[in-house]
């Protein structure tokens, strides 16, 4: 049973560029959340997608946007990259909130370096 898969695993960008990160949820999960983890800190919630819509958003600027596809996979897009966007980006999947034990399963992450 495949868990949560993310791509790419590592990438390097320069300031001002745009990046797209991808996530496929665990089989049986239809809700996808994205987290940003700066070095030495705990993960911070970016947003959550369910039924192809952004259902909840954390305290991140509009430069961070996302999408969920009919097969439940998701993309995270970051525009106009800043040095401070360098972090590990984690995708987590789960069953919909409110439908029982809402255990999040995380992927291995995409490590973004902005130069």
């Amino acid at each position: 049973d495949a868990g949560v898969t993310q791509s790419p695993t590592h990438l390097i960008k320069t300031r001002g560029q745009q990046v797209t990160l991808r996530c496929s949820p665990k089989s049986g999960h239809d809700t996808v959340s994205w987290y940003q983890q700066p070095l030495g800190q705990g993960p911070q919630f970016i947003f959550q997608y369910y039924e192809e819509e952004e259902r909840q958003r954390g305290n991140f600027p509009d430069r961070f946007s996302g999408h969920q596809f009919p097969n439940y996979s998701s993309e995270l897009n970051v525009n106009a990259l800043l040095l401070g966007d360098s972090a590990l980006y984690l995708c987590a999947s789960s069953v919909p909130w409110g439908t029982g034990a809402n255990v999040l399963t995380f992927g291995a992450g995409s490590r973004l370096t902005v130069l």
Partner: protein
Amino acid sequence: GIQVEQSPPDLILQEGANSTLRCNFSDSVNNLQWFHQNPWGQLINLFYIPSGTKQNGRLSATTVATERYSLLYISSSQTTDSGVYFCAVRGDNQGGKLIFGQGTELSVKP
């Protein structure tokens, strides 16, 4: 918003020792998970434990929701237990997002 504090921030153990990690949270929660993050960044779910006690091998966890804390016990530690342990909670009116603590970095020496 809900605050999550973990202690201690760092812990160094000799192989075979036992340890207790603590997570305090500032409001009532309906979801609490303990994670282990390995050196490659993968977050592994250890326990889903919004209340009560659970055990899995050498690891066990207890959450006392009324007193707003959770404990993770590691017995007979091994070098493979090294890494960062995170507690994450979801508040009753927080929708689907988890709020993470800053983690406890554990180093187990042979």
